[in-house]
């Protein structure tokens, strides 16, 4: 038994990140650590900054202050606290280490399911077409779409498209996967198949930060839940603590109450 008292460095380390759009403060000193293999879900009312937080993590959005590190490496800005933006190639290379799945799928409509997955593999990872194809087929099989490799996105259902979206992200073997309300645009009967895929990834040890309104999923699949309100982390902890009806966090209680009223 190792008696290692040293803190295991977090895979994702968000520290005091703040961001404003004009005069609107969207993130207020957000801090969050996510360890390797952990699944963290983010809940909170609309407009609380959940999407913005995820977008900052892969630098689709810049932030005003604080720092975000993945695997010890500063995201977006150069090392040394100079807040000098990384160069374009550097940023692209960093983003390749972070997978992102979007609410609106954002599949490339001119490419087949396999083509969507192969693009990053060939252009960014430098794989041959044959290699990329076999990786794409592997992942399509994993998400239950082995037979749809040559279908265009428009020929797929929403649930199928989102599963391709997940496959596209994980095929790049990112260090961390960011998922932003990935089932919100889906018909209710298609939500299950997508969440099932995410569950499988969690079991495989994929590190994930997932914004969701699926409370049952958050409760069962995540190690911790972050409750965001008004641009800040209002509560964070294991699901049973956060989702407990008798929490003394006023905001969280009213969010859950409203949520239960509208969803059950």
């Amino acid at each position: 038994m190792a008696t290692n008292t040293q803190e295991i460095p977090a895979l994702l380390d968000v520290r005091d990140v703040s961001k404003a759009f004009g005069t609107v403060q969207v993130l207020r000193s957000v801090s969050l650590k996510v360890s390797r293999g952990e699944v963290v879900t983010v809940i909170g009312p609309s407009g609380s900054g959940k999407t913005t937080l995820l977008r900052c993590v892969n630098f689709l959005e810049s932030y005003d202050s604080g720092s975000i590190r993945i695997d010890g490496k500063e995201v977006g800005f150069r090392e040394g606290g100079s807040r000098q933006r990384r160069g374009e190639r550097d940023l692209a290379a960093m983003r390749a280490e972070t997978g992102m799945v979007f609410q609106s799928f954002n599949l490339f409509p001119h490419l087949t399911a396999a083509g969507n997955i192969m693009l990053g593999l060939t252009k960014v990872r430098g794989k041959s077409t044959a290699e990329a194809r076999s990786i794409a087929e592997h992942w399509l099989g994993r998400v239950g779409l082995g037979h749809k490799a040559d279908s265009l996105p428009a020929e797929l259902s929403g649930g199928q498209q989102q599963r391709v979206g997940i496959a596209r992200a994980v095929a790049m073997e990112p260090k961390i996967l960011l998922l932003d309300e990935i089932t919100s645009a889906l018909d209710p009967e298609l939500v299950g198949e997508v969440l099932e895929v995410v569950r499988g990834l969690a079991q495989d040890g994929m590190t994930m930060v997932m914004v969701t309104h699926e409370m049952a999923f958050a409760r069962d699949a995540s190690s911790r839940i972050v409750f965001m309100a008004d641009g800040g982390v209002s509560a964070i902890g294991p699901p049973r603590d956060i989702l407990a009806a008798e929490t003394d966090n006023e905001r969280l209680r009213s969010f859950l109450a409203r949520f239960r009223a509208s969803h059950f």
Partner: protein
Amino acid sequence: MLGQIIYALPFLAEGFALTLWVSFLVVLFSLMAGVILGVGLVYGPVPLRWAVRIFSDTIRGIPILVLIFFVYYGLPAIGLHLPSFWAAVTALTLFKTAQVVEYLRGAVGSIPRGQTEAAMAIGLTFRQQLTSVIFPQAFRRFLPPWINGVTDAVKGSALVSLLGITDLMQAINQVIGRTYEAMPLYILGALIYFAVNYTLSLASRRLERRFTFIRE
């Protein structure tokens, strides 16, 4: 009469070749310049956007004839002497470039923002985002107005005859000057222009069909 026209055919063919050559150069140069400036207009830093916007709006606000005379007769005043051929090609290219800028802006602007973000998220560089994700989708939108513009360029190239360049139009005029057979020769000229442009339109339609994919 027919004999005279047949006699003039090799001369007309030379004019026709020049028309095609001018059109080709204009289309090629304006495509390159227009795509680069168009990308600058959509993605560039603010000063560049402004510069392209001003360029495009100014050029499109000037009649092409004025532009041709300006380049040929006006530029020598600032020490830039272009031979008539290159003055004509330059003026037509400027005009066409401004149009290509607008076609490109429209086509690229029609691609949802999420496409760029998805491309960024898998780690594509800016150039890869454009070539692998944005342009292939924008192409279908860009093509119809652009081919239309190509036919315009072929027709517009007739204006170079005003600088004394012997293109198809000028050749026809010269043959008429010698034969006094205006009508048949103008009809012949019209048919040639029409044949070129009709071929282009057909090609365009076939291309468009080939690049059709269903959008969600």
